[in-house]
């Protein structure tokens, strides 16, 4: 694999590695700001078409400047902090949400040579940093001193840690297959390296070998990024906007920036790991232009699917959401890992892996269908909210 293009070669000046990496990261940040503006505009347009409306039209030609106008408005708004908020937690929460999202871009390969750093454990790294995000969300919820913000923060965190497990297991399934391929090629290790994973998908993208993994990954990504139908943490009708209800102006827009950037990151990761990134179907010879077009096309297609899902599904209830992760997705993800392990240990060919995963996916869909039917038929399935418990036994015991 060729090395990354070093910026100093372009500029003709020498600089240490870390300065080089820093410049790339800043470049990503700038790009992502524009990306966010574009995504918001597109989401409004796409949703409008689904709902037989036209969406923004007034600002600029076909409303294309709408996002820019919104951004300007947000930047000039007053930055309000509630009097009773915990000052440091309130203000730092933004950064705990914002910074990890950008740190996650470090190992993502846009093309064969365009990435910030080639990390040996890149895949694991992305998930590790994803966990940092949760802390920021809880800080925002608690620091606002607002009960809706707190509820939203707790919901977001509960949701994020619940869906991280199936996602990690889906990733583990892919890594197992990549490790198998690498072993066949006489290499050992490197299966957690995102570049290597893309390299392995020259002819067969992993979505064909792990359709169940892909579906679980996408559902997990929706939940991690609080996208509908998993947007309970920010649901206006339930928690009046969730953990950032008290934020305004520039801080609020940073939350939004983090959210859309996270969305883009997740689809980039999905297109890299499951759809073959720049490598499928034209390979490394296709040149830089084709590679970047392929990557972005795959990412855009996935984003379109996510917008579509938003238009299609109503919001879940929080206990349904948790039950879905722990009782449905997690067992299926574990089954997937187990099946992969057994097939690979006995040297089964790729198509067996793919077929078994597809069979699991079909049974997952069938199970969901049965559950929903049972619900619609009025049969009681165990998705009722738990009985509230406000009094603990020790409080009863001490008699107050």
């Amino acid at each position, binding site marked *: 694999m060729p090395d990354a293009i070093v910026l100093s070669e372009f500029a003709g000046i020498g600089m240490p590695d870390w300065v080089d990496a820093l410049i790339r990261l800043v470049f990503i940040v700038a790009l992502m700001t524009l990306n966010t503006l574009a995504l918001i505009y597109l989401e409004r347009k796409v949703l409008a078409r689904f709902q037989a409306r036209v969406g923004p039209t007034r600002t600029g030609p076909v409303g294309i400047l709408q996002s820019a106008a919104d951004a300007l408005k947000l930047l000039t708004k007053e930055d309000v902090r509630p009097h009773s908020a915990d000052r440091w937690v309130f203000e730092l929460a933004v950064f705990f949400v914002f910074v990890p999202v950008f740190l996650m871009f470090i190992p993502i390969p846009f093309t064969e040579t365009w990435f910030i750093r080639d990390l040996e454990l890149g895949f*694991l790294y992305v998930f590790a940093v994803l966990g*940092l995000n949760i802390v920021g969300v809880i800080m925002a919820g608690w620091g606002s001193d607002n009960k809706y913000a707190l509820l939203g923060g707790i919901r977001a965190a509960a949701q994020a840690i619940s869906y991280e497990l199936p996602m990690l297991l889906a990733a583990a399934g892919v890594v197992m297959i990549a490790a198998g391929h690498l072993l066949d090629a006489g290499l050992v*290790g490197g299966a957690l390296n995102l570049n290597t994973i893309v390299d392995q998908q020259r002819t067969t993208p992993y979505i064909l070998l792990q359709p169940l993994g892909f579906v679980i990954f996408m559902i997990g990504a929706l939940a991690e990024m609080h996208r509908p139908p998993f947007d309970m943490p920010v649901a206006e009708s339930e928690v009046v906007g969730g953990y950032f209800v008290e934020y305004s102006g520039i801080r609020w827009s940073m939350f939004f920036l983090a959210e859309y950037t996270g969305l883009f990151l997740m689809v980039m990761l999905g297109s890299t790991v499951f759809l073959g990134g720049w490598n499928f179907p034209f390979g490394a010879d296709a040149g830089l232009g084709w590679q970047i077009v392929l990557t972005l096309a795959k990412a855009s297609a996935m984003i379109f699917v996510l917008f579509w899902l938003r238009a299609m599904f109503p919001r879940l209830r929080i206990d349904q959401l948790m039950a879905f992760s722990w009782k449905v997705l997690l067992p299926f993800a574990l089954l997937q890992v187990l099946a992969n392990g057994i097939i690979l240990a006995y040297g089964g060919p790729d198509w067996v892996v793919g077929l078994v995963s597809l069979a699991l996916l079909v049974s997952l869909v069938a199970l969901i269908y049965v559950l929903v039917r049972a619900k619609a038929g009025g049969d009681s399935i165990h998705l009722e909210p738990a009985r509230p418990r406000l009094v603990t036994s020790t409080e009863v015991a001490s008699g107050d």
Partner: protein
Amino acid sequence: MSDVGFHLAFWSLSALTIGGALMIIVSRNLIHAVIFLILSFIGVAGLFITLSADFLALVQILVYVGAIAVLMLFAILLTPRAARDNEESLMRYPAMILMGLVIAAGVFVALETDWGPMREGAIGTQAKIIGESLINQYVLPFEIGAVMLTAALVGAIALARQDDEDLPIHTASLIEEGVLPPPDGDAADAPAGPGDDS
């Protein structure tokens, strides 16, 4: 790796770790303490990276920050009155002196000892080595860990689960233990439990 960068990383990460740890003790607000704990964890993860133990660093962040610290935040947020300050304690100064001595002893030992295995240099790809150990010589400890987590999970659910039949039994057993007064009796002479300070 440039020498300056390494020293810069080491000292700033050490400052983050130790400063975070100190602030945990000094902070009187539990939420703040957990946030400092998270900073300290991140610092430790960074130090692992400077020791070229990158797998360990990522697992540290994934497990300690992503799971344990979040669990602690949850526990604090869901416990009534838990965000209150720590109380004053007379044992503060003896404890401070004791911990000072412990830290001094630890530093002395760490500096004076000849740590033989340290000289053997960094290991290459740890994910591979750890993975191979876990299915080879250390397969048994790995399985014991799995059984331990199963037992803990089963037990936690058994303890935390509230059954519909529990409440009457609960009241009955509390009356039997003398914690609650009998239905017609007086509460005044109910004996206090061992943990009841009042």
